[in-house]
């Protein structure tokens, strides 16, 4: 462990794990689990959206593929979701790679809208293919606790698992970011043509990063299914879910492995608390959530991470900002 940052990440993880073991409140554990789940999903989204500049609004498709694959296999053949999770991940990765290849030439909004279409197609397919997915009635996963079933009595267990997932994915992302692939991906994001002309294999890298992103998103989907124990098209394959993954990453700050974590730690508890506490007028919680979203975009268009780092910079007088490669947020990208 020569790398200091890795030590820190692992330290933070350990602290959190210990903290969880001390928390007895199930609502808090639920919050930790969901925050972890969305941090994981946003981190996965960020591999495509933040690193290689493929702004997807269709990641709900991969989330759904993951959840459906493992659940169908588990309910019909009894196959452990731990295995089903990997199968779902691989299927999602293949779909993603193909789709990314198809949409290779599309940029910005057009890519986003094309991926949005993928999510919608998956939604309709899951509603219509009733013999496989049980359609919109959804799949109830029977509550049979057991490690192999990936179903647990205690929410703390779910919290341990998802935090471990987050840790592994964060380390993975961190090493990617540090490796030459990270620089290739940044290069593609910032100026694809130039990067390709310098010998970066753009198409393969984009397809690859999209596939990896989809793989992890599908794993998040399986985890979700095993946690909620009920899946249906309306809770998995809706645009809102895809938007949520992207929002968390963007609000936190794309292009860094800390951004999605930060976004999730702030947004998920916020929305849960709003929903729990602002319940006297129907819709007020969503209204406030919307206002907060708008405020962040308006006042901190680069996300929260650079903002927080700036505070640190001012405090410590060090140039923390420069360590973070700027995302697609620079003005030149628009000109």
């Amino acid at each position, binding site marked *: 462990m020569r790398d200091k940052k890795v030590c820190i990440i692992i330290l933070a993880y350990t602290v959190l794990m210990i903290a969880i073991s001390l928390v007895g409140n199930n609502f808090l554990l639920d919050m930790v689990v969901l925050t972890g789940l969305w941090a994981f999903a946003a981190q996965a989204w960020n591999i495509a959206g933040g690193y290689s500049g493929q702004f997807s609004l269709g990641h709900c498709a991969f989330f759904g593929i993951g959840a459906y694959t493992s659940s169908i296999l588990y309910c019909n053949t009894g196959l452990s979701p731990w295995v089903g999770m990997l199968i779902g991940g691989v299927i999602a990765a293949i779909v993603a790679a193909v789709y990314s290849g198809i949409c290779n030439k*599309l940029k910005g909004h*057009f890519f986003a809208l094309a991926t949005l279409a993928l999510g919608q197609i998956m939604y309709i397919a899951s509603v219509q293919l009733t013999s496989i997915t049980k359609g919109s009635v959804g799949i109830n996963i029977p509550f049979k606790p057991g490690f192999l079933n990936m179903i647990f009595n205690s929410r703390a267990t779910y919290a341990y698992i998802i935090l471990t997932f987050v840790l592994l994915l964060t380390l993975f992302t961190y090493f990617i970011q540090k490796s030459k692939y990270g620089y290739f991906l940044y290069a593609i994001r910032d100026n694809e043509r130039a990067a390709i002309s310098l010998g970066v294999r753009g198409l393969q890298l984009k397809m690859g990063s999209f596939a990896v992103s989809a793989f992890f998103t599908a794993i998040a989907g399986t985890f979700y299914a095993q946690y909620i124990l009920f899946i249906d098209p309306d809770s998995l394959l809706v645009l809102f879910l895809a938007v949520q993954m*992207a*929002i968390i990453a*963007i609000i936190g700050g794309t292009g860094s492995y800390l951004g999605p974590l930060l976004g999730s730690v702030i947004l998920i508890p916020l929305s849960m608390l709003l929903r729990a506490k602002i319940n006297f007028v129907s819709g007020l919680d969503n209204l406030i959530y919307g206002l907060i979203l708008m405020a962040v975009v308006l006042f901190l268009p680069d996300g929260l991470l650079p903002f927080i780092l700036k505070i640190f910079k001012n405090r410590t007088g060090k140039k923390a900002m420069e360590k973070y490669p700027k995302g697609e947020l620079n003005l030149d990208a*628009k000109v």
Partner: protein
Amino acid sequence: MFLQNLVNGIFVGAMYGLTASGLSLIFGVLNIVNFAHGEFIMIGMYITYFAGALLGVNPILSVLISVPVMLILGVLVERFLINRIINSSDMAQIFLTVGLGLVLSNLALIFIGGNYYSVRVGYATESLKLGSLLIGKASFLTFIVTVITFIVVSMMLKYTFIGKAIRATSQDRTTAQLMGVNTGFIYTVAFGLGMVLVAISAALLTIMFPVYPNIGNHFVVICFVIVVLGGLGSLPGALVGGVIVGVIEILCGYYFSMGWKDVVPFLVLIICLLVRPQGIFGTRT
């Protein structure tokens, strides 16, 4: 029957085209995907509904009220919100409008409630008979208004000075600036004009659809598809894209399956993106 379905498809397509036209204009000029488009439609529909319920105004005439109101709303939204993120990342722009959409639909829920309100007009359910062909008066009316609106707006864009400036800005905003165009002003004008189109389409939608806080969800995704299909900011493109989607969707619904018909627009979109990424009427850059 085929002819009947074809005609229905064209009418539905015209409705789609008109509904998407405001989005298309805004997308084309400001290069912003407006995820609050559905909520703007919702507001337009509420204005039409209340104009009918409180003042007894026919949906068609209600545009006299809804157009100015929506125009002002559009100008305010552009000046105070959109304007500030015009140079931000694509995603930041999308999320501003996502947030705005959340705010608007929940404001409607809080202040107007979740009820489904409809304007009741006789012609909503009446039809004209052409041989064995039945043409719904409301659909026909929508079609006529769509065509007139498109002609008027296209003429405006084609022949007025500001129209040319709007087109120039949508094609190359930097150079437009160099030619002395105050692009900030053009954005406001374009957004306002887009909202006028939304107001007109919303008034027509109110004839057939009840309005409630989430009605926009019924239309917004299809509008995205049409805008991309037709080509960025191209009004004729929006109309043609709408008709293509409408016709294929209706034929698929009749001859194949109602349940699967909604997948058609997306498949058409993907195929189109593969073959002609710039859209039917778009320019390759």
